[in-house]
């Protein structure tokens, strides 16, 4: 998918003005955080598990080459094959080659964000292969020809009426007079329509939540069971995933699994956690005859060893999206690529470039909720700040903004001047805002006041209050700073 992250401001305005999106986001705003809170309240060890989860991922990243090689050995030993892809193009080519070798015409897919990242469906279609998304949310957005707006609930921006419209437009073989007014009927219709495609598929493609070096297994976590039908019915199972999904042992996977479902949907455990190891064995009555894993780098290895490495711990649980005030206001499509919300604001500049996605790390209030709910404690606001520094250093931000910042920086380095100016500004604004307590518009601050009020200062600057208090208790204010 072609990123449109560069037009985040316009995308966000469109999102704010979209009544369907706003209603749908309203449901998500309360639902996910509440369920997560209830789930972690039942597990007293949750905080300790977060620390252990972070330590496991940090350990893997420090020795990623070793664990990847060990994983590959064990995939090969169990009869599977690993394909390495430096970028999206190589991953698409590897998958197309496998599909062609299998003479595939229909390919079923479990939900995979990496498949979205490499725009796999477009590539398969362009080469005469029909990809069928089988996760209900992914299926809906495939019918609507739009990207996912959330990493675990791809159709979260829609209400049931839009889903019904999409189904009526696509399922023309069904009775046009049928009732499609509730989620139950929609869910049943998708089940009925997709079942024959599961059975007809030549190749099944899934992602992976974890890859286990110890056993050469890939693990997927789903609730619908679509990922399982996708991999056990066709003759060929392809796993497409990123190199950072490795964990050393099954025990390490267990720790991360305990964090994942609780952080994502607030479930104790998702309905289906499935370990897949190689192709079917001699004597097995079902299961794929071929098992392939496509390991994608696509900029991930370049994040190691620096200020962005922490992002490679990400489990893709979406807790940061579910707790983000910006995501909750503008929705996922505003972010303009595959990964929205705080994790997207950090990952997208790394994968498509800060020139394209520089707006995203700026679209944050730095409230810190994302970091506080992250199951592996990724310091998301801190990394967004690093991206802002890069953007500034590469002269990508607008000239007015850069000049303003430079001016401010110069003033801030002259404390007497800074204090004098801040004192004047807070007195003037405090006096002017005395009546309302806030400003609806203000010269030089239209960027702010166009969409919200500016609270009026109290009339004194922090520095003058601090100095006064220190004098009162008999200390020199200088000595404290």
């Amino acid at each position, binding site marked *: 998918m072609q990123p449109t992250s560069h037009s985040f401001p316009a995308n966000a305005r469109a999102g704010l003005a979209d009544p369907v999106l706003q209603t749908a986001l309203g449901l998500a705003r309360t639902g996910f955080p509440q369920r997560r809170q209830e789930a972690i309240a039942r597990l007293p060890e949750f905080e300790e598990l977060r620390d252990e989860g972070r330590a496991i991922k940090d350990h893997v990243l420090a020795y990623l080459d070793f664990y990847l090689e060990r994983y590959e050995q064990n995939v090969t030993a169990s009869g599977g094959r690993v394909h390495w892809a430096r970028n999206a193009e190589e991953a698409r080519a590897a998958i197309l080659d496998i599909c062609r070798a299998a003479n595939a015409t229909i390919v079923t897919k479990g939900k995979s964000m990496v498949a979205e990242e490499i725009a796999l469906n477009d590539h398969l279609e362009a080469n005469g292969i029909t990809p069928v998304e089988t996760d209900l949310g992914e299926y809906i957005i495939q019918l609507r020809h739009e990207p996912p707006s959330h990493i675990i609930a791809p159709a979260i921006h829609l209400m049931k009426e839009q889903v019904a419209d999409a189904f009526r437009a696509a399922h023309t073989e069904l009775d046009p007079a049928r009732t499609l007014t509730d989620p139950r009927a929609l869910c049943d219709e998708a089940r009925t329509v997709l079942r024959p495609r599961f059975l007809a598929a030549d190749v099944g493609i899934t992602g992976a939540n974890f890859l286990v070096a*110890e056993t050469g297994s890939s693990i997927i976590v789903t609730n619908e*069971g679509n990922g399982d039908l996708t991999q056990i019915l066709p003759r060929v199972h392809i796993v497409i995933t990123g190199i950072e999904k490795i964990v050393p042992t099954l025990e390490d996977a*267990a720790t991360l699994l305990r964090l994942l479902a609780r952080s994502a949907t607030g479930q104790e455990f998702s309905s289906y956690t499935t370990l897949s190891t190689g192709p079917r064995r001699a*004597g097995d009555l079902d299961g794929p005859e071929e098992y392939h894993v496509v390991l994608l780098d696509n900029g991930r290895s*370049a994040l190691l060893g620096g200020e962005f490495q922490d992002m490679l711990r990400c489990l893709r649980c979406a807790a940061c999206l579910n707790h983000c005030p910006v995501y909750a206001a503008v929705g996922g499509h505003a972010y303009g690529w595959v990964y929205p919300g705080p994790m997207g604001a950090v990952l997208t500049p790394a994968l498509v470039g800060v020139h394209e996605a520089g707006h995203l790390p700026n679209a944050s209030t730095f409230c810190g909720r994302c970091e506080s709910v992250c199951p592996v404690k990724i310091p998301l606001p801190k990394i967004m700040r690093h991206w802002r520094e890069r953007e500034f250093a590469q002269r990508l931000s607008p000239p007015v903004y850069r000049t303003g910042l430079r001016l401010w920086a110069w003033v801030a380095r002259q404390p007497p001047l800074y204090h004098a100016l801040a004192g004047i500004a807070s007195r003037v604004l405090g006096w002017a805002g005395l009546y309302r307590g806030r400003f609806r518009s203000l010269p030089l601050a239209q960027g702010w006041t166009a969409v919200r009020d500016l609270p009026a200062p109290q009339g004194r600057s922090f520095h003058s209050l601090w100095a006064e208090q220190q004098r009162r208790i008999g200390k020199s204010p200088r000595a404290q700073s």
Partner: protein
Amino acid sequence: MSAARDDILGGIRRALWRGSLPPDKTAELTGRIAAHRRNLVPARAAALDPAARADLFVAMAEEVQTSVARVASDADIPAEVARYLAAENLPAELVVAPDPGLDAIPWELRPLLQIHRGRAEAQDAVSLTPCLAGIAETGTLMLASGAGTPTTLNFLPDTHIVVLHAGQIVASYEDGWDLLRARASPTPAPPPRAGEGGSPQSGDRVGALPRTVNLITGPSRTGDIEQRIQLGAHGPRRLHIVLVDDAPPAKG
């Protein structure tokens, strides 16, 4: 593709400011895998005696819309299956896993139940399978694929019935991993009991996991439309466990 492999591994080492790992570090990491030490295991199920563990398993399973019926012995399974199918208004016809461990179930006690054995096909509405373990901490079933336990039985039919013996209920996922490793190990396994499916096959590489291991926690569900949970998205709409409360098997 090997150029891509070398580039990726080389890129990782460059980013980490080092070359290949020295042999002592490789040995240490190999040892970490071989030891597969447990991390923190929640206390929830760990300290319980077998009876309390079974109760926790049932409570957690029922919380996620799994139904559980407790019976005294394998001989009671046919009657319970017939009762359940009638109560749910389902046809008295089912596909049963061709696992030798299930041969002991006296289906002849319920001659009206139509039984055939094999993998599941599109038209099969009800399946019955053994499982490897029940995991108490979240009411999760662990099932492993094998010649007698095809995975299609767990996903294609609308209704999935699982036979679980109380002695198979363990506390944690880690206990489940140990059972998998014991199955895969070269030491000879004890002869299978009724309901302990997925006996190791000669085709398995020593130490290899079965092709598919399913951890199943409740029936299929989705919240993809307006976040309202619907059961039976693509997998089974109903998950029913027949819990046989007989003496626990001798476990290593």
